[in-house]
């Protein structure tokens, strides 16, 4: 399936090169992006807010730099969309929640400063499931986002707006956040590349917290190269995030085309069985064959504890969320619904401001952390987290990378998964990497029986992004040359 994409907006690397060479301008790139958005976003609803003034000023600054013969950066003139859970100074940041409506953060997230320094143009803020809790972007206080490839379908979630913004050709790059699959699953459903980096590789300063020990920012792109380019720009130590990895990280772009000759790749047995649609499984097997054809040594590997990932995640993430979301008390930011005293005001504000899924997870997390249940729920889930991490470590003694489907199915119809548990199941393949803190990414690899894109997930051990991107590049090449036909 093809999307109505402006060719110039499909490749960030090519666009930046053209802008840097003076063949195109940042202002033209922004105008092209704005035109596509104006044409199509009423239907898709990827954006909650456009940052027009700031974008125009950024574009003018980039063009002035180039006119003055200065280096405008590796992303010069590239329009970028940001998930609306990243703080943008002076521009609305809602997390798709009524409780933050009208709030204008007094600071920028670290990633935004890094993108700006690299010459990127921030065009706007994208829709998400409220506070990033969901897998379809239907659960936004401001209405759902639709999949640009088939608007009767969801784009996945929770970063559905950022995935759709790239898939629809609005922007060549966007940022999402991934707590249990919220970048990789929508990337798979929208047919784009999506990366969840190693925990701590990208600063979380200014990313509004959902589950702090799992959250990680990462890019969406049409190509593996663009995703690598963006990752290299946004990653690296930040003193403002205490969980940021202090050691220098290896860049991914220089060795992107090194291939997979001799690389050992394990297909995760437990993620290829029941619950995964046969067409998705078939594409994953084809992807493994493509890696083997490029010289990789491919085998299956058992990581038994991955099947417990979902259960552990739905205790850990709500527990951390219940703590993180305690700050929405009607005192410092966003909406307040008044009451006769502080406690009543807090309750009135939170009851009116949060949607049902957020309330469910806060209650679940409060319960899992409460006296008498802590060891049975939260404590046990944290031990399972160690178990999964240990089993991954054991698998990586024999393999360099692992492979699995990204999502159990292709994009489903809006409204098709109305009970919480069936939506939670969407993340079964992606959650284990968040629990272990490892990098993982989704690469488009052909289509399913319904003609909609299938994503294949490449998983790596801690900080092995360079090798993960190399394998993803091989898959992209194979898909382009008919390996996913």
């Amino acid at each position: 399936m093809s999307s109505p994409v402006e060719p110039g907006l499909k490749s960030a690397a090519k666009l930046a090169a053209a802008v840097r060479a003076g063949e195109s301008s940042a202002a033209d790139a922004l105008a092209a992006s704005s035109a596509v958005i104006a044409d199509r976003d009423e239907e898709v609803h990827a954006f909650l807010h456009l940052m027009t003034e700031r974008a125009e000023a950024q574009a003018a600054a980039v063009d002035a730099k180039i006119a003055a013969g200065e280096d405008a950066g590796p992303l010069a003139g590239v329009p970028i969309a940001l998930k609306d859970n990243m703080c943008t100074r002076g521009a609305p940041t809602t997390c798709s929640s009524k409780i933050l409506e009208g709030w204008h953060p007094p600071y920028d997230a670290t990633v935004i400063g890094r993108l700006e320094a690299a010459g990127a143009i921030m065009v706007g803020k994208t829709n998400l499931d409220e506070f990033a809790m969901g897998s379809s972007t239907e659960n936004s206080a401001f209405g759902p986002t639709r999949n640009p490839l088939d608007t009767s379908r969801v784009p996945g979630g929770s970063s559905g707006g950022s995935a759709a913004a790239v898939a629809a050709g609005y922007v060549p790059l966007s940022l999402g956040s991934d707590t249990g699959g919220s970048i990789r699953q929508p990337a798979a459903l929208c047919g784009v590349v999506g990366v969840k980096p190693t925990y701590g590789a990208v600063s979380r300063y200014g990313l509004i917290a959902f589950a702090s020990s799992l959250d990680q920012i990462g890019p969406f792109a049409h190509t593996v190269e663009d995703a690598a380019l963006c990752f290299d720009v946004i990653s690296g130590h930040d003193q403002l995030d205490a969980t940021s990895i202090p050691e220098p990280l290896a860049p991914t772009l220089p060795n992107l085309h090194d291939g997979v000759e001799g690389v050992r790749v394990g297909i995760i047995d437990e993620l290829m069985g029941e619950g995964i649609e046969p067409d998705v499984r078939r594409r994953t097997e084809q992807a493994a064959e493509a890696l083997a054809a490029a010289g990789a040594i491919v085998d299956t590997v058992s990581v038994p504890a991955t099947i417990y990932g979902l259960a552990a995640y739905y205790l850990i993430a709500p527990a951390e969320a219940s703590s993180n979301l305690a700050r929405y008390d009607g005192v410092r930011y966003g909406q307040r619904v008044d009451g006769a005293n502080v406690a009543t005001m807090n309750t009135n504000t939170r009851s009116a401001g949060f949607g049902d899924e957020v309330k469910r997870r806060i209650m679940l997390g409060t319960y899992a952390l409460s006296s008498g249940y802590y060891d049975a729920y939260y404590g046990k889930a944290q031990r399972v987290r160690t178990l999964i991490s240990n089993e991954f470590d054991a698998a990586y003694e024999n393999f360099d990378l692992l492979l699995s489907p990204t999502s159990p199915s292709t994009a489903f119809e809006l409204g098709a998964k109305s009970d919480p548990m069936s939506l939670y199941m969407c993340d079964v393949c992606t959650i284990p990497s968040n629990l272990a803190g490892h990098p993982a990414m989704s690469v488009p690899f052909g289509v399913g029986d319904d003609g909609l894109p299938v994503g294949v997930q490449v998983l790596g051990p801690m900080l092995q992004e360079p090798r993960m991107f190399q394998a993803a590049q091989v898959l992209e090449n194979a898909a382009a040359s008919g390996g996913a036909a």
Partner: protein
Amino acid sequence: MSGEISRDEVAHVASLARLSVTDDELTTFTDQLCVVLETAAQLNALDLDDVEPMAQPYPLANVLRVDEIVPSLDRDEVLSQAPAAEEGRFRVPPALGEAP
């Protein structure tokens, strides 16, 4: 863990989390939370006695910086985003008793 949560427990948890729920919502939330907790009960099958809990994935401890004064957020800009502020502070209703 039994994998179940009673209606009364859900009501208690909601009040701890400063959420008010209607009777209908209480019924729905209780049913939904029971399903999630039943799934969580799968973890009972695992022998975890010798496994240490993991709080976060990357082994960092005592992250410190030099104790120097550095610029912080602009107070007026921060307060301009609060629902109510007065004399450089956030303003809230009375913590004890009720507003007159």
